[in-house]
């Protein structure tokens, strides 16, 4: 994966059938996800009241979403009262334009960035680049992705698809092109790699005049923004520059200061499996002589209100981007993050991307099917998003079409293309299943011809027989056996 764009990517099954063959990728992902899986389970088991916290987290988010207009107006007023400036963006282009203008007003041509899903989603780095502004990613994994001209493949650890020796090679080869080169003789010891990043980025932090961030939470009643991180690059970007621009999805608001007591327990344990992450920064507007003296908050919609309009799909907006669902997902583990074609991979991506972007493209229409519905994601989700429920709901949208909201307008969409044969098969099956006599006829026909059934099937059956034997059709169906041995049929 290279070139840093999701445009023109194939549908999930094609991308995934390629990535499942990539042994290195599979090994990297299996190792990383299994490591964190066990640790998360332990961190969660430490809290006897986890189910109650989880329910409260979901409830607080539901309260917020059902009154989102109220809370956004409240957070806007609170941020402005504390000296910040609030901007609104309906879509990615508008958000990018706002940020570009804000950076230009400072006269600067470079910015340092804290990892942010929202800015990846809107393609901010590319937009800034086209406007002649260089954006430096400072999160270790984002740095690996940026230096490797790669795409992120995980919410928390965008370079999870890279192992330590690949990271070493990228650092050794690319750091020099972006600033301070990697030390000679760099090995693949994680501590040494982290140290190389420290040295490489320090220079950029010290001279940066503009920082760009997202936020994990915005507290409506106080106007406080919260960034949860590990490395300290977040603190660097949030405190050293003169100007701070935070780009935040409208669903990140929480009502009260007290509500943080729930999320600051749910998030670290679910994401990095820690009791608490190393650093959390909280700021309310600006503080005289401490940190950035100019603060802009850019609130983005970009498909969120469309998602909100769907009463089943809405729950995806509860997501706190912990990535626990990715780490337990057997499909993600084998397909890798890039196959999902958006900054949101894994189970959450499979329900969020088709809602934010719609299901018009082949890739986006394939995402709701990128799951065996095993339910592991729902089980670990700290805000109890029933991902399988939303997946099936979105599958309906793909094959049946219907009423949806697209960029704020109610629209009736047609069923996606390419499902005609399947639809016909489903109808035929439904007809047979609604006529037990027809079902019995089919079973008897299959039984009579059973010696002729081939081991490998053509057409859609091929997908099954490539790796699996087909079950042998029995000489007699259950229903025939029952009738033969029990004689009487009830009803």
């Amino acid at each position, binding site marked *: 994966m290279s070139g840093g764009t999701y445009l023109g990517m194939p549908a999930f*099954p094609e991308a*995934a*059938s390629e990535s*499942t*063959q990539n042994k290195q990728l*599979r090994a990297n992902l299996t190792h990383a996800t299994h490591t964190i899986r066990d640790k998360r389970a332990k961190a969660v088991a430490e809290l006897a009241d986890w189910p109650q916290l989880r329910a409260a987290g979901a409830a607080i988010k539901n309260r917020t979403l059902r009154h989102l207009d109220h809370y956004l107006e409240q957070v806007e007023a609170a941020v402005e009262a504390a000296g910040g400036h609030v901007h609104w963006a309906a879509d990615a282009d508008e958000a990018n334009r706002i940020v570009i203008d804000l950076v230009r007003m400072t006269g600067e041509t470079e910015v340092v960035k804290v990892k942010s899903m929202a800015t990846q989603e809107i393609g901010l780095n590319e937009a800034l680049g086209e406007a002649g502004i260089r954006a430096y990613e400072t999160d270790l994994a984002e740095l690996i992705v940026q230096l490797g001209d790669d795409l992120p493949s995980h919410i928390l650890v965008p370079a999870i698809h890279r192992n330590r020796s690949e990271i070493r090679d990228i650092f050794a080869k690319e750091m020099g092109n972006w600033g301070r080169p990697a030390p000679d003789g760099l090995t693949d010891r994680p501590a040494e790699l982290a140290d190389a990043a420290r040295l490489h980025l320090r220079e950029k932090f010290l001279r940066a005049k503009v920082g760009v961030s997202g936020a994990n939470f915005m507290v409506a009643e106080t106007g406080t923004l919260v960034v949860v991180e590990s490395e300290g690059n977040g603190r660097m970007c949030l405190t050293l520059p003169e100007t701070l621009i935070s780009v935040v999805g409208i669903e990140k608001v929480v009502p009260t200061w007290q509500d943080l007591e729930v999320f600051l327990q749910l998030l670290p344990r679910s994401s990095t499996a820690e009791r608490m992450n190393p650093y959390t920064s909280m700021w309310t507007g600006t503080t005289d002589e401490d940190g950035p003296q100019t603060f802009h908050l850019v609130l983005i919609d970009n498909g969120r209100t469309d998602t909100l309009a769907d*009463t089943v799909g809405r729950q995806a907006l509860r997501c706190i981007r912990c990535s626990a669902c990715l780490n337990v997902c*057997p*499909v993600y583990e*084998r397909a890798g993050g890039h196959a999902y074609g958006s900054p949101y991979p894994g189970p959450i991506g499979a329900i969020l991307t088709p809602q934010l972007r719609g299901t018009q493209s082949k890739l986006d229409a394939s995402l*709701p*099917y*990128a799951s*065996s*519905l*095993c*339910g*592991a994601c*729902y089980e670990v989700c700290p805000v109890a998003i029933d991902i399988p*429920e939303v997946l*099936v709901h*979105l*599958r*309906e*949208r*793909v*094959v*049946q079409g219907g009423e949806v909201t697209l960029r704020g307008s109610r629209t009736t969409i047609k069923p996606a293309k390419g499902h005609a044969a*399947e*639809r016909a098969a*489903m109808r035929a*099956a*439904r007809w047979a*299943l*609604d006529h*037990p006599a027809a*079902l019995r006829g*089919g*079973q008897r026909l299959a039984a009579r011809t059973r010696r002729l059934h081939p081991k490998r099937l053509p057409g*859609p059956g091929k*997908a*099954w027989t*490539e*790796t*699996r*034997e087909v*079950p042998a*059709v*029995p000489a*007699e*169906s*259950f*229903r025939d*056996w*029952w*009738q033969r041995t*029990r004689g009487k*049929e*009830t*009803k």
Partner: protein
Amino acid sequence: MRVALFVTCVNDTLYPDTGRAVVTLLERLGVEVDFPAAQTCCGQAQFNTGYRYETEPLVRRYARAFEGYDHIVTPSGSCVAMVRDNYPRIGEKAAAEGRGDELAEIAASVVPRTYELTEFLVDVLGVTDVGAYFPHTVTYHPTCHGLRMLGLGRRPVELLSHVKGLELRELPGADECCGFGGTFAVKNAAVSAAMGADKARHISETGASAVCTVDNSCLMHIGGTLARLGSQTRPVHLAEILASTEEHPYAPGGIR
């Protein structure tokens, strides 16, 4: 107590032995069981692929077929999960679309009467020792629906632990999905196969001579993968193990 067997379309057509095993087992435990022939399919494949409207007639059929029964017992965890989790959703959505409460009422009527086999045995009949005999090494794969949606917990293992002669082998990575997932197995065949291969490897590692589940659809995928890989481990539905006795031991191809 009027008890009906919901054998499911997959078992009816491909795995009649499992249905026969349930009948044998329940009759041995003194339960008189009916097979209402109007039954066909719960609609799981249609619903999970997105064809909700195609599912609705099957929901109605299910309700009609099992009207008047106190307990509807089925040897398929995923079909129970379909009824329990999704029938109410289908009802809710139909109501929201202004098509009345009929489907919601159906859901309210059938959900509390529908039981997965091990639930029926342990919770309704209150038995964990069903007097079975199965002198083999067995490993148990808890299917996703059984594990996470129904919360079967220890019920299947409890039942297995009382089977005479049976040696239970623990399955590594037991809670990981086998990769079947209904139409997922063909829509995302590559990922499904990769998951199946890992599951098959774990099963083979146990050295057990049989792998059992509470669901033949997962077992079809697991067994198909094991067979293709040349494994000696056989797939067996839990019901067939529980039906097996010293007088009438399990034999592939059917009891009686």
